Protein backbone atom coordinates (compact mmCIF):
# COMPACT_ATOMS: atom_id res chain seq x y z
CA UNK A 1 0.00 0.00 0.00
CA UNK A 2 2.74 2.44 0.87
CA UNK A 3 5.75 3.57 -1.06
CA UNK A 4 6.41 3.37 -4.74
CA UNK A 5 4.70 0.52 -6.51
CA UNK A 6 5.82 0.29 -10.15
CA UNK A 7 2.88 -1.90 -11.14
CA UNK A 8 0.41 0.59 -9.74
CA UNK A 9 2.14 3.53 -11.42
CA UNK A 10 2.07 1.68 -14.72
CA UNK A 11 -1.65 1.02 -14.32
CA UNK A 12 -2.26 4.69 -13.56
CA UNK A 13 -0.36 5.78 -16.66
CA UNK A 14 -2.28 3.33 -18.84
CA UNK A 15 -5.64 4.53 -17.47
CA UNK A 16 -4.82 8.19 -18.07
CA UNK A 17 -3.41 7.59 -21.56
CA UNK A 18 -6.53 5.64 -22.52
CA UNK A 19 -8.79 8.38 -21.15
CA UNK A 20 -6.90 11.19 -22.87
CA UNK A 21 -6.88 9.35 -26.18
CA UNK A 22 -10.61 8.48 -26.14
CA UNK A 23 -11.47 10.75 -29.12
CA UNK A 24 -8.84 8.86 -31.12
CA UNK A 25 -9.75 5.25 -30.42
CA UNK A 26 -13.41 5.23 -29.37
CA UNK A 27 -14.90 6.00 -32.83
CA UNK A 28 -12.59 3.35 -34.30
CA UNK A 29 -14.14 0.61 -32.14
CA UNK A 30 -17.69 1.67 -32.97
CA UNK A 31 -18.39 4.08 -30.11
CA UNK A 32 -19.18 7.76 -30.19
CA UNK A 33 -17.70 10.55 -28.15
CA UNK A 34 -20.85 11.24 -26.07
CA UNK A 35 -20.71 7.63 -24.92
CA UNK A 36 -17.16 8.29 -23.73
CA UNK A 37 -18.31 11.41 -21.88
CA UNK A 38 -21.10 9.42 -20.25
CA UNK A 39 -18.70 6.74 -19.09
CA UNK A 40 -16.40 9.33 -17.52
CA UNK A 41 -19.28 11.21 -15.85
CA UNK A 42 -20.89 8.08 -14.39
CA UNK A 43 -17.45 6.74 -13.61
CA UNK A 44 -16.83 9.84 -11.54
CA UNK A 45 -20.11 9.25 -9.70
CA UNK A 46 -19.22 5.61 -9.05
CA UNK A 47 -15.70 6.57 -7.93
CA UNK A 48 -17.18 9.12 -5.52
CA UNK A 49 -19.68 6.60 -4.18
CA UNK A 50 -16.85 4.14 -3.69
CA UNK A 51 -15.03 6.64 -1.50
CA UNK A 52 -17.79 5.92 1.01
CA UNK A 53 -18.72 2.37 0.02
CA UNK A 54 -15.36 0.77 -0.62
CA UNK A 55 -13.03 2.87 1.51
CA UNK A 56 -15.16 3.81 4.50
CA UNK A 57 -17.29 0.67 4.44
CA UNK A 58 -20.58 2.57 4.67
CA UNK A 59 -23.42 1.30 2.53
CA UNK A 60 -25.17 4.23 0.88
CA UNK A 61 -28.00 3.54 -1.50
CA UNK A 62 -29.16 7.12 -1.89
CA UNK A 63 -26.46 8.87 -3.87
CA UNK A 64 -28.78 9.58 -6.78
CA UNK A 65 -30.35 12.36 -4.71
CA UNK A 66 -27.13 14.37 -4.67
CA UNK A 67 -26.37 13.46 -8.28
CA UNK A 68 -29.78 14.85 -9.19
CA UNK A 69 -29.41 17.94 -7.01
CA UNK A 70 -26.19 18.76 -8.83
CA UNK A 71 -27.94 18.22 -12.14
CA UNK A 72 -30.88 20.48 -11.24
CA UNK A 73 -28.50 23.02 -9.73
CA UNK A 74 -26.60 23.55 -12.96
CA UNK A 75 -29.77 23.48 -15.05
CA UNK A 76 -31.55 26.09 -12.95
CA UNK A 77 -28.51 28.33 -12.73
CA UNK A 78 -28.20 28.49 -16.50
CA UNK A 79 -31.94 28.65 -17.13
CA UNK A 80 -32.99 31.19 -14.50
CA UNK A 81 -29.99 33.07 -13.10
CA UNK A 82 -26.69 33.37 -14.96
CA UNK A 83 -26.04 31.61 -18.25
CA UNK A 84 -22.58 30.39 -17.31
CA UNK A 85 -21.44 26.80 -17.39
CA UNK A 86 -18.67 27.33 -14.86
CA UNK A 87 -20.90 29.08 -12.35
CA UNK A 88 -23.55 26.42 -12.87
CA UNK A 89 -21.10 23.61 -12.07
CA UNK A 90 -19.98 25.38 -8.91
CA UNK A 91 -23.56 26.10 -7.87
CA UNK A 92 -24.85 22.57 -8.57
CA UNK A 93 -21.97 20.97 -6.70
CA UNK A 94 -22.55 23.33 -3.79
CA UNK A 95 -26.27 22.56 -3.61
CA UNK A 96 -25.66 18.82 -3.49
CA UNK A 97 -22.84 19.12 -0.97
CA UNK A 98 -24.81 21.38 1.39
CA UNK A 99 -27.84 19.08 1.25
CA UNK A 100 -25.62 16.10 2.10
CA UNK A 101 -23.97 18.01 4.94
CA UNK A 102 -27.36 18.87 6.44
CA UNK A 103 -28.77 15.35 6.15
CA UNK A 104 -25.53 13.78 7.39
CA UNK A 105 -26.05 14.27 11.14
CA UNK A 106 -29.42 12.50 10.90
CA UNK A 107 -27.97 9.33 9.46
CA UNK A 108 -24.34 8.90 10.55
CA UNK A 109 -25.35 7.03 13.67
CA UNK A 110 -26.99 4.27 11.63
CA UNK A 111 -25.07 1.35 10.18
CA UNK A 112 -25.30 -1.34 7.57
CA UNK A 113 -28.60 -2.02 5.89
CA UNK A 114 -30.31 0.63 7.99
CA UNK A 115 -27.98 3.30 6.70
CA UNK A 116 -28.84 2.12 3.20
CA UNK A 117 -32.55 2.22 3.90
CA UNK A 118 -32.53 5.71 5.40
CA UNK A 119 -30.32 7.20 2.67
CA UNK A 120 -32.55 5.78 -0.03
CA UNK A 121 -35.69 7.04 1.68
CA UNK A 122 -34.24 10.53 2.09
CA UNK A 123 -33.38 10.59 -1.57
CA UNK A 124 -37.06 10.30 -2.40
CA UNK A 125 -37.83 13.71 -0.85
CA UNK A 126 -35.84 15.43 -3.57
CA UNK A 127 -37.42 13.21 -6.18
CA UNK A 128 -40.91 14.27 -5.15
CA UNK A 129 -39.92 17.93 -4.97
CA UNK A 130 -38.53 17.77 -8.50
CA UNK A 131 -41.55 15.78 -9.65
CA UNK A 132 -44.22 18.00 -8.10
CA UNK A 133 -42.81 21.52 -8.32
CA UNK A 134 -43.83 21.87 -11.96
CA UNK A 135 -43.45 25.63 -12.32
CA UNK A 136 -39.75 25.59 -11.41
CA UNK A 137 -38.43 22.12 -12.18
CA UNK A 138 -40.62 21.25 -15.16
CA UNK A 139 -42.03 18.29 -13.25
CA UNK A 140 -42.09 14.92 -14.94
CA UNK A 141 -41.15 16.44 -18.31
CA UNK A 142 -37.86 17.65 -16.92
CA UNK A 143 -36.07 20.96 -17.03
CA UNK A 144 -35.62 22.05 -20.62
CA UNK A 145 -34.97 25.28 -22.45
CA UNK A 146 -31.30 25.60 -21.60
CA UNK A 147 -28.03 24.43 -23.10
CA UNK A 148 -24.46 24.32 -21.93
CA UNK A 149 -22.79 27.67 -22.47
CA UNK A 150 -19.40 28.39 -24.04
CA UNK A 151 -16.48 28.52 -21.64
CA UNK A 152 -14.70 31.86 -21.36
CA UNK A 153 -11.08 31.82 -20.32
CA UNK A 154 -10.24 35.49 -20.83
CA UNK A 155 -7.85 34.70 -23.65
CA UNK A 156 -10.10 32.28 -25.48
CA UNK A 157 -13.69 31.05 -25.73
CA UNK A 158 -14.39 27.35 -26.09
CA UNK A 159 -17.63 26.20 -27.64
CA UNK A 160 -18.45 23.04 -25.71
CA UNK A 161 -21.97 22.79 -27.08
CA UNK A 162 -21.19 21.97 -30.69
CA UNK A 163 -17.80 20.39 -30.21
CA UNK A 164 -18.26 17.09 -28.38
CA UNK A 165 -14.51 16.63 -28.09
CA UNK A 166 -14.13 19.94 -26.25
CA UNK A 167 -16.88 18.94 -23.83
CA UNK A 168 -15.26 15.55 -23.33
CA UNK A 169 -12.02 17.22 -22.29
CA UNK A 170 -13.88 19.51 -19.88
CA UNK A 171 -15.43 16.42 -18.30
CA UNK A 172 -12.09 14.66 -18.22
CA UNK A 173 -10.35 17.65 -16.63
CA UNK A 174 -12.89 17.80 -13.81
CA UNK A 175 -12.76 14.03 -13.46
CA UNK A 176 -8.97 14.22 -13.13
CA UNK A 177 -9.25 16.95 -10.51
CA UNK A 178 -11.81 14.99 -8.49
CA UNK A 179 -9.89 11.72 -8.79
CA UNK A 180 -6.68 13.42 -7.70
CA UNK A 181 -8.34 14.98 -4.66
CA UNK A 182 -9.91 11.68 -3.65
CA UNK A 183 -6.68 9.74 -4.17
CA UNK A 184 -4.81 12.35 -2.13
CA UNK A 185 -7.36 12.20 0.67
CA UNK A 186 -7.25 8.41 0.76
CA UNK A 187 -3.48 8.52 1.13
CA UNK A 188 -3.63 11.09 3.93
CA UNK A 189 -3.95 10.18 7.62
CA UNK A 190 -7.64 11.00 7.27
CA UNK A 191 -8.03 8.39 4.54
CA UNK A 192 -6.14 5.83 6.59
CA UNK A 193 -8.53 6.49 9.44
CA UNK A 194 -11.44 5.77 7.13
CA UNK A 195 -9.85 2.44 6.23
CA UNK A 196 -9.44 1.68 9.92
CA UNK A 197 -13.14 2.37 10.48
CA UNK A 198 -14.00 0.09 7.59
CA UNK A 199 -11.88 -2.74 8.90
CA UNK A 200 -12.87 -2.56 12.55
CA UNK A 201 -15.14 0.19 13.70
CA UNK A 202 -15.13 -0.82 17.34
CA UNK A 203 -11.37 -0.85 17.56
CA UNK A 204 -11.20 2.52 15.82
CA UNK A 205 -13.61 3.87 18.40
CA UNK A 206 -11.52 2.48 21.25
CA UNK A 207 -8.50 4.26 19.81
CA UNK A 208 -10.33 7.50 20.34
CA UNK A 209 -11.29 8.17 16.74
CA UNK A 210 -14.54 10.14 16.47
CA UNK A 211 -16.10 7.59 14.14
CA UNK A 212 -19.40 9.35 13.48
CA UNK A 213 -17.67 12.59 12.55
CA UNK A 214 -15.33 10.78 10.16
CA UNK A 215 -18.24 9.02 8.50
CA UNK A 216 -20.04 12.34 8.19
CA UNK A 217 -17.03 13.99 6.51
CA UNK A 218 -16.56 11.01 4.21
CA UNK A 219 -20.27 11.14 3.35
CA UNK A 220 -20.10 14.85 2.51
CA UNK A 221 -16.99 14.42 0.35
CA UNK A 222 -18.54 11.48 -1.45
CA UNK A 223 -21.84 13.25 -2.06
CA UNK A 224 -20.02 16.41 -3.11
CA UNK A 225 -18.19 14.65 -5.92
CA UNK A 226 -21.38 12.82 -6.89
CA UNK A 227 -23.10 16.19 -7.28
CA UNK A 228 -20.20 17.36 -9.43
CA UNK A 229 -20.82 14.30 -11.59
CA UNK A 230 -24.51 15.23 -11.61
CA UNK A 231 -23.79 18.71 -12.95
CA UNK A 232 -21.73 17.20 -15.76
CA UNK A 233 -24.47 14.69 -16.51
CA UNK A 234 -27.01 17.49 -16.92
CA UNK A 235 -24.60 19.43 -19.14
CA UNK A 236 -24.00 16.32 -21.23
CA UNK A 237 -27.72 15.88 -21.90
CA UNK A 238 -28.67 19.61 -21.86
CA UNK A 239 -31.60 18.31 -19.86
CA UNK A 240 -32.52 17.10 -16.37
CA UNK A 241 -35.51 15.07 -15.33
CA UNK A 242 -36.58 13.57 -12.00
CA UNK A 243 -35.25 10.15 -12.95
CA UNK A 244 -31.75 11.48 -12.29
CA UNK A 245 -32.71 11.48 -8.60
CA UNK A 246 -34.82 8.33 -8.53
CA UNK A 247 -33.63 5.53 -6.27
CA UNK A 248 -32.96 3.14 -9.13
CA UNK A 249 -30.18 5.52 -10.23
CA UNK A 250 -28.48 4.93 -6.85
CA UNK A 251 -28.57 1.22 -7.52
CA UNK A 252 -26.83 1.83 -10.84
CA UNK A 253 -23.94 3.56 -9.07
CA UNK A 254 -23.60 0.76 -6.55
CA UNK A 255 -23.59 -1.95 -9.21
CA UNK A 256 -20.92 -0.03 -11.14
CA UNK A 257 -18.70 0.06 -8.07
CA UNK A 258 -19.24 -3.62 -7.31
CA UNK A 259 -18.87 -4.69 -10.92
CA UNK A 260 -15.52 -3.00 -11.33
CA UNK A 261 -14.23 -3.85 -7.89
CA UNK A 262 -14.91 -1.92 -4.69
CA UNK A 263 -11.49 -2.49 -3.21
CA UNK A 264 -9.59 -0.76 -5.98
CA UNK A 265 -9.48 2.90 -6.90
CA UNK A 266 -10.11 2.48 -10.63
CA UNK A 267 -12.61 -0.36 -10.26
CA UNK A 268 -15.75 1.81 -10.33
CA UNK A 269 -14.60 3.50 -13.55
CA UNK A 270 -14.22 0.11 -15.22
CA UNK A 271 -17.62 -0.92 -13.83
CA UNK A 272 -19.16 2.27 -15.22
CA UNK A 273 -17.64 1.60 -18.65
CA UNK A 274 -19.04 -1.92 -18.77
CA UNK A 275 -22.42 -0.88 -17.43
CA UNK A 276 -22.89 2.14 -19.71
CA UNK A 277 -21.91 0.24 -22.82
CA UNK A 278 -24.13 -2.70 -21.87
CA UNK A 279 -27.11 -0.44 -21.18
CA UNK A 280 -26.54 1.44 -24.43
CA UNK A 281 -26.46 -1.82 -26.34
CA UNK A 282 -29.42 -3.49 -24.60
CA UNK A 283 -31.74 -0.51 -24.82
CA UNK A 284 -31.16 -0.33 -28.57
CA UNK A 285 -31.65 -4.07 -29.04
CA UNK A 286 -34.68 -4.97 -26.92
CA UNK A 287 -37.66 -3.33 -25.25
CA UNK A 288 -37.16 -5.63 -22.28
CA UNK A 289 -33.71 -4.29 -21.47
CA UNK A 290 -34.81 -3.72 -17.87
CA UNK A 291 -35.11 -7.47 -17.33
CA UNK A 292 -31.65 -8.02 -18.72
CA UNK A 293 -30.22 -5.32 -16.48
CA UNK A 294 -31.93 -6.98 -13.52
CA UNK A 295 -30.57 -10.36 -14.56
CA UNK A 296 -27.15 -8.74 -14.89
CA UNK A 297 -27.41 -7.51 -11.25
CA UNK A 298 -28.25 -11.03 -10.10
CA UNK A 299 -25.41 -12.61 -12.08
CA UNK A 300 -22.85 -10.07 -10.84
CA UNK A 301 -23.86 -10.67 -7.22
CA UNK A 302 -23.82 -14.46 -7.53
CA UNK A 303 -20.74 -14.92 -9.69
CA UNK A 304 -18.59 -11.76 -9.66
CA UNK A 305 -18.96 -10.30 -6.17
CA UNK A 306 -15.36 -9.12 -6.21
CA UNK A 307 -15.68 -7.34 -9.51
CA UNK A 308 -13.41 -7.34 -12.53
CA UNK A 309 -10.37 -5.94 -10.77
CA UNK A 310 -10.89 -8.19 -7.76
CA UNK A 311 -10.76 -11.24 -10.00
CA UNK A 312 -7.71 -10.00 -11.89
CA UNK A 313 -5.91 -9.27 -8.65
CA UNK A 314 -6.69 -12.68 -7.26
CA UNK A 315 -5.43 -14.34 -10.44
CA UNK A 316 -2.24 -12.31 -10.24
CA UNK A 317 -1.75 -13.35 -6.62
CA UNK A 318 -2.19 -17.08 -7.21
Amino acid sequence: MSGFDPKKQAANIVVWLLLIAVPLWLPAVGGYIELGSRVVVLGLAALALNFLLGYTGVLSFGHAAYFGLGAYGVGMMIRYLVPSTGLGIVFGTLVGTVAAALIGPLIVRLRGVYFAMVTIAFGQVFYFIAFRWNSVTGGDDGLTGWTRQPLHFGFATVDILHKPNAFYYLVLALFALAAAVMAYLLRSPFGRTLLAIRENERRARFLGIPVDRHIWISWVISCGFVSLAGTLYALLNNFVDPRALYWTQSGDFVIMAVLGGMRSFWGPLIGAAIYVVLQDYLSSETANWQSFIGLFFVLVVLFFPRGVLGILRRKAAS
Partner: protein
Amino acid sequence: MTQLILFDAFNGLIVGAFYALMALGLSLILNLSGVINFAHGGFLAIGGYLAYMLIPYIGFWGALIVAPLLTAVLGLIVERVLIRPLYGRDPLYSLLLTFGLAFIFEDGTRFIWGAQSLPFQVPGWLVTPLSSQYFFLTGYRLFMVLTVAIAVTGLFLILTRTRLGMRIRAGTLDLETVSVLGVNVRILRNLNFGLGIYLAGLAGVLAVGQLGLQPTVGSSLIMPSFVAIIVGGLGSLPGTLLGGLLIGVASGITTVFFPSASEAVIYVMMAAVLLVRPRGLLGEEGRF
Protein backbone atom coordinates in the same frame (compact mmCIF):
# COMPACT_ATOMS: atom_id res chain seq x y z
CA MET B 1 -64.74 20.60 5.55
CA THR B 2 -65.00 18.08 8.35
CA GLN B 3 -66.29 15.58 5.86
CA LEU B 4 -63.41 16.31 3.51
CA ILE B 5 -60.87 15.80 6.26
CA LEU B 6 -62.62 12.61 7.35
CA PHE B 7 -62.65 11.42 3.75
CA ASP B 8 -58.95 12.01 3.26
CA ALA B 9 -58.05 10.67 6.68
CA PHE B 10 -59.96 7.49 5.93
CA ASN B 11 -58.29 7.25 2.53
CA GLY B 12 -54.98 7.69 4.29
CA LEU B 13 -55.87 4.96 6.74
CA ILE B 14 -56.48 2.54 3.88
CA VAL B 15 -53.26 3.47 2.15
CA GLY B 16 -51.55 3.24 5.53
CA ALA B 17 -52.93 -0.27 5.97
CA PHE B 18 -51.20 -1.25 2.72
CA TYR B 19 -47.96 0.34 3.82
CA ALA B 20 -48.25 -1.51 7.11
CA LEU B 21 -48.98 -4.86 5.48
CA MET B 22 -46.04 -4.44 3.15
CA ALA B 23 -43.75 -3.03 5.78
CA LEU B 24 -44.54 -5.87 8.20
CA GLY B 25 -43.36 -8.39 5.62
CA LEU B 26 -40.26 -6.34 4.89
CA SER B 27 -39.61 -5.96 8.59
CA LEU B 28 -39.91 -9.71 9.29
CA ILE B 29 -37.32 -10.48 6.64
CA LEU B 30 -35.06 -7.61 7.62
CA ASN B 31 -35.08 -8.47 11.32
CA LEU B 32 -34.29 -12.15 10.97
CA SER B 33 -32.11 -12.23 7.87
CA GLY B 34 -30.75 -8.69 7.53
CA VAL B 35 -31.99 -8.52 3.97
CA ILE B 36 -33.73 -5.45 2.56
CA ASN B 37 -36.07 -7.02 0.07
CA PHE B 38 -36.34 -4.51 -2.77
CA ALA B 39 -38.33 -7.08 -4.71
CA HIS B 40 -41.14 -6.92 -2.15
CA GLY B 41 -43.15 -4.63 -4.40
CA GLY B 42 -42.60 -7.07 -7.25
CA PHE B 43 -44.03 -9.89 -5.15
CA LEU B 44 -46.99 -7.66 -4.36
CA ALA B 45 -47.64 -7.10 -8.06
CA ILE B 46 -47.34 -10.82 -8.76
CA GLY B 47 -49.90 -11.53 -6.03
CA GLY B 48 -52.28 -9.15 -7.76
CA TYR B 49 -51.74 -10.60 -11.22
CA LEU B 50 -52.14 -14.16 -9.94
CA ALA B 51 -55.45 -13.16 -8.41
CA TYR B 52 -56.47 -11.59 -11.72
CA MET B 53 -55.77 -14.87 -13.49
CA LEU B 54 -57.48 -17.01 -10.86
CA ILE B 55 -60.71 -15.03 -10.43
CA PRO B 56 -62.44 -16.43 -13.57
CA TYR B 57 -61.91 -19.95 -12.22
CA ILE B 58 -62.29 -19.78 -8.47
CA GLY B 59 -63.90 -16.38 -7.89
CA PHE B 60 -62.72 -13.45 -5.84
CA TRP B 61 -62.80 -15.23 -2.49
CA GLY B 62 -60.91 -18.22 -3.80
CA ALA B 63 -58.29 -15.95 -5.31
CA LEU B 64 -57.99 -14.04 -2.06
CA ILE B 65 -56.93 -17.27 -0.39
CA VAL B 66 -54.94 -18.97 -3.15
CA ALA B 67 -53.02 -16.09 -4.76
CA PRO B 68 -51.10 -15.02 -1.63
CA LEU B 69 -50.19 -18.65 -0.96
CA LEU B 70 -48.83 -19.08 -4.49
CA THR B 71 -46.86 -15.85 -4.09
CA ALA B 72 -45.45 -17.18 -0.83
CA VAL B 73 -44.35 -20.38 -2.58
CA LEU B 74 -42.53 -18.26 -5.15
CA GLY B 75 -40.94 -16.42 -2.24
CA LEU B 76 -39.76 -19.68 -0.68
CA ILE B 77 -38.13 -20.69 -3.97
CA VAL B 78 -36.46 -17.33 -4.49
CA GLU B 79 -35.07 -17.39 -0.95
CA ARG B 80 -33.81 -20.94 -1.30
CA VAL B 81 -32.14 -20.49 -4.68
CA LEU B 82 -30.94 -16.89 -4.77
CA ILE B 83 -30.81 -15.35 -1.32
CA ARG B 84 -29.57 -18.22 0.84
CA PRO B 85 -26.08 -18.22 -0.73
CA LEU B 86 -25.70 -14.59 0.33
CA TYR B 87 -26.23 -14.93 4.10
CA GLY B 88 -23.05 -14.19 5.93
CA ARG B 89 -21.77 -11.96 3.14
CA ASP B 90 -21.82 -8.18 3.14
CA PRO B 91 -25.49 -7.04 3.21
CA LEU B 92 -24.65 -5.05 0.08
CA TYR B 93 -24.98 -8.19 -2.02
CA SER B 94 -28.46 -9.24 -0.97
CA LEU B 95 -29.48 -5.62 -1.50
CA LEU B 96 -28.20 -5.60 -5.06
CA LEU B 97 -29.68 -9.01 -5.78
CA THR B 98 -33.20 -8.09 -4.68
CA PHE B 99 -32.75 -4.79 -6.50
CA GLY B 100 -32.12 -6.71 -9.70
CA LEU B 101 -35.06 -8.99 -8.96
CA ALA B 102 -37.30 -5.94 -8.62
CA PHE B 103 -36.32 -4.91 -12.15
CA ILE B 104 -37.01 -8.40 -13.46
CA PHE B 105 -40.40 -8.66 -11.73
CA GLU B 106 -41.57 -5.27 -12.93
CA ASP B 107 -40.46 -5.82 -16.49
CA GLY B 108 -41.62 -9.43 -16.46
CA THR B 109 -45.16 -8.56 -15.36
CA ARG B 110 -45.21 -5.84 -18.02
CA PHE B 111 -44.07 -8.37 -20.61
CA ILE B 112 -46.68 -10.97 -19.67
CA TRP B 113 -49.71 -8.84 -18.81
CA GLY B 114 -48.98 -5.55 -20.59
CA ALA B 115 -48.25 -2.09 -19.25
CA GLN B 116 -51.81 -0.80 -19.10
CA SER B 117 -54.05 -1.04 -16.08
CA LEU B 118 -56.17 -4.20 -16.09
CA PRO B 119 -59.80 -4.32 -14.90
CA PHE B 120 -60.17 -6.13 -11.64
CA GLN B 121 -63.57 -7.43 -10.59
CA VAL B 122 -64.52 -7.34 -6.95
CA PRO B 123 -67.95 -8.65 -5.90
CA GLY B 124 -70.61 -6.07 -6.75
CA TRP B 125 -72.16 -5.79 -3.31
CA LEU B 126 -68.80 -4.72 -1.93
CA VAL B 127 -68.56 -1.67 -4.18
CA THR B 128 -71.79 0.15 -3.25
CA PRO B 129 -71.50 2.94 -0.70
CA LEU B 130 -72.90 2.10 2.70
CA SER B 131 -74.14 5.57 3.55
CA SER B 132 -75.08 8.53 1.41
CA GLN B 133 -73.52 11.08 3.74
CA TYR B 134 -70.21 9.27 4.08
CA PHE B 135 -70.10 8.23 0.45
CA PHE B 136 -66.47 7.10 0.68
CA LEU B 137 -67.37 4.26 3.04
CA THR B 138 -67.80 1.53 0.44
CA GLY B 139 -68.06 -2.05 1.52
CA TYR B 140 -64.81 -2.87 -0.25
CA ARG B 141 -62.88 -0.35 1.77
CA LEU B 142 -64.27 -1.57 5.05
CA PHE B 143 -63.58 -5.09 3.89
CA MET B 144 -59.97 -4.15 3.14
CA VAL B 145 -59.43 -2.61 6.54
CA LEU B 146 -61.02 -5.67 8.10
CA THR B 147 -58.86 -8.08 6.09
CA VAL B 148 -55.71 -6.20 6.99
CA ALA B 149 -56.75 -6.24 10.64
CA ILE B 150 -57.34 -10.00 10.50
CA ALA B 151 -54.03 -10.59 8.73
CA VAL B 152 -52.12 -8.50 11.25
CA THR B 153 -53.83 -10.20 14.19
CA GLY B 154 -53.05 -13.56 12.62
CA LEU B 155 -49.42 -12.58 12.18
CA PHE B 156 -49.05 -11.52 15.79
CA LEU B 157 -50.80 -14.70 16.97
CA ILE B 158 -48.38 -16.77 14.89
CA LEU B 159 -45.45 -14.85 16.31
CA THR B 160 -46.54 -15.13 19.95
CA ARG B 161 -48.47 -18.41 20.12
CA THR B 162 -46.74 -20.85 17.79
CA ARG B 163 -43.39 -22.56 18.01
CA LEU B 164 -42.37 -21.16 14.61
CA GLY B 165 -43.25 -17.64 15.70
CA MET B 166 -41.31 -17.94 18.93
CA ARG B 167 -38.30 -19.19 17.03
CA ILE B 168 -38.57 -16.29 14.60
CA ARG B 169 -38.68 -13.82 17.47
CA ALA B 170 -35.83 -15.54 19.25
CA GLY B 171 -33.79 -15.62 16.05
CA THR B 172 -34.34 -11.91 15.61
CA LEU B 173 -32.69 -11.33 18.96
CA ASP B 174 -29.88 -13.87 18.77
CA LEU B 175 -29.73 -16.17 15.79
CA GLU B 176 -26.56 -17.90 16.90
CA THR B 177 -28.02 -19.10 20.18
CA VAL B 178 -31.16 -20.30 18.43
CA SER B 179 -28.99 -22.27 16.06
CA VAL B 180 -26.97 -23.77 18.91
CA LEU B 181 -30.21 -24.87 20.58
CA GLY B 182 -30.86 -27.14 17.63
CA VAL B 183 -33.18 -25.10 15.45
CA ASN B 184 -32.55 -25.41 11.76
CA VAL B 185 -31.86 -21.76 11.00
CA ARG B 186 -31.94 -22.26 7.24
CA ILE B 187 -35.47 -23.58 7.30
CA LEU B 188 -36.45 -20.91 9.81
CA ARG B 189 -35.20 -18.15 7.53
CA ASN B 190 -36.87 -19.78 4.56
CA LEU B 191 -40.27 -19.99 6.27
CA ASN B 192 -39.90 -16.49 7.65
CA PHE B 193 -39.21 -15.19 4.16
CA GLY B 194 -42.27 -17.04 2.88
CA LEU B 195 -44.40 -15.50 5.63
CA GLY B 196 -43.22 -12.02 4.69
CA ILE B 197 -43.94 -12.66 1.02
CA TYR B 198 -47.38 -14.03 1.90
CA LEU B 199 -48.22 -10.64 3.39
CA ALA B 200 -46.96 -8.94 0.23
CA GLY B 201 -49.12 -11.23 -1.90
CA LEU B 202 -52.18 -10.53 0.25
CA ALA B 203 -51.53 -6.79 0.02
CA GLY B 204 -51.26 -7.29 -3.73
CA VAL B 205 -54.68 -8.90 -4.06
CA LEU B 206 -56.27 -6.19 -1.93
CA ALA B 207 -54.37 -3.33 -3.51
CA VAL B 208 -55.37 -4.05 -7.08
CA GLY B 209 -59.03 -3.75 -6.15
CA GLN B 210 -58.25 -0.28 -4.86
CA LEU B 211 -55.31 1.07 -6.85
CA GLY B 212 -55.75 -0.80 -10.14
CA LEU B 213 -53.52 -3.51 -11.55
CA GLN B 214 -50.35 -2.36 -13.30
CA PRO B 215 -46.70 -3.44 -13.23
CA THR B 216 -45.61 -0.41 -11.19
CA VAL B 217 -48.14 -0.96 -8.40
CA GLY B 218 -45.46 -2.46 -6.17
CA SER B 219 -42.64 -0.03 -6.73
CA SER B 220 -44.83 2.90 -5.74
CA LEU B 221 -45.55 1.27 -2.38
CA ILE B 222 -42.06 0.17 -1.40
CA MET B 223 -40.50 3.51 -0.44
CA PRO B 224 -43.30 4.47 1.96
CA SER B 225 -42.94 1.00 3.48
CA PHE B 226 -39.29 1.76 4.22
CA VAL B 227 -40.38 5.00 5.84
CA ALA B 228 -42.97 3.10 7.89
CA ILE B 229 -40.27 0.81 9.24
CA ILE B 230 -37.94 3.69 10.08
CA VAL B 231 -40.64 5.82 11.71
CA GLY B 232 -42.03 2.90 13.69
CA GLY B 233 -38.68 1.75 14.93
CA LEU B 234 -36.19 -0.71 13.52
CA GLY B 235 -36.71 -4.20 14.85
CA SER B 236 -40.18 -3.59 16.25
CA LEU B 237 -43.15 -5.11 14.43
CA PRO B 238 -45.82 -3.19 16.39
CA GLY B 239 -43.77 -0.11 15.57
CA THR B 240 -43.87 -0.95 11.88
CA LEU B 241 -47.65 -1.33 12.04
CA LEU B 242 -48.00 2.00 13.83
CA GLY B 243 -45.58 3.68 11.45
CA GLY B 244 -47.49 2.48 8.40
CA LEU B 245 -50.87 3.69 9.67
CA LEU B 246 -49.39 6.96 10.89
CA ILE B 247 -47.72 7.98 7.64
CA GLY B 248 -50.80 6.87 5.69
CA VAL B 249 -53.11 9.12 7.71
CA ALA B 250 -50.62 11.99 7.74
CA SER B 251 -50.27 11.83 3.99
CA GLY B 252 -54.07 11.64 3.62
CA ILE B 253 -54.67 14.71 5.78
CA THR B 254 -51.93 16.64 3.97
CA THR B 255 -53.85 16.02 0.76
CA VAL B 256 -56.61 18.29 2.08
CA PHE B 257 -54.39 21.28 2.73
CA PHE B 258 -51.41 20.96 0.46
CA PRO B 259 -51.98 18.23 -2.14
CA SER B 260 -48.63 18.47 -3.88
CA ALA B 261 -46.80 17.74 -0.63
CA SER B 262 -48.75 14.57 0.16
CA GLU B 263 -45.85 12.34 -0.86
CA ALA B 264 -43.07 14.44 0.59
CA VAL B 265 -44.69 14.79 4.02
CA ILE B 266 -43.89 11.24 5.07
CA TYR B 267 -40.19 11.86 4.46
CA VAL B 268 -40.38 15.01 6.54
CA MET B 269 -41.92 12.88 9.30
CA MET B 270 -39.08 10.43 8.94
CA ALA B 271 -36.52 13.21 9.27
CA ALA B 272 -38.29 14.53 12.37
CA VAL B 273 -38.34 11.10 13.98
CA LEU B 274 -34.67 10.48 13.21
CA LEU B 275 -33.80 13.87 14.66
CA VAL B 276 -35.74 13.53 17.90
CA ARG B 277 -35.71 9.78 18.42
CA PRO B 278 -33.23 8.01 16.12
CA ARG B 279 -34.37 4.52 17.09
CA GLY B 280 -37.93 5.21 15.89
CA LEU B 281 -41.16 5.48 17.84
CA LEU B 282 -41.22 1.96 19.29
CA GLY B 283 -37.67 0.86 18.52
CA GLU B 284 -35.54 -0.65 21.23
CA GLU B 285 -32.67 1.45 22.47
CA GLY B 286 -29.19 0.51 21.36
CA ARG B 287 -30.19 -2.25 18.97
CA PHE B 288 -28.99 -0.51 15.85
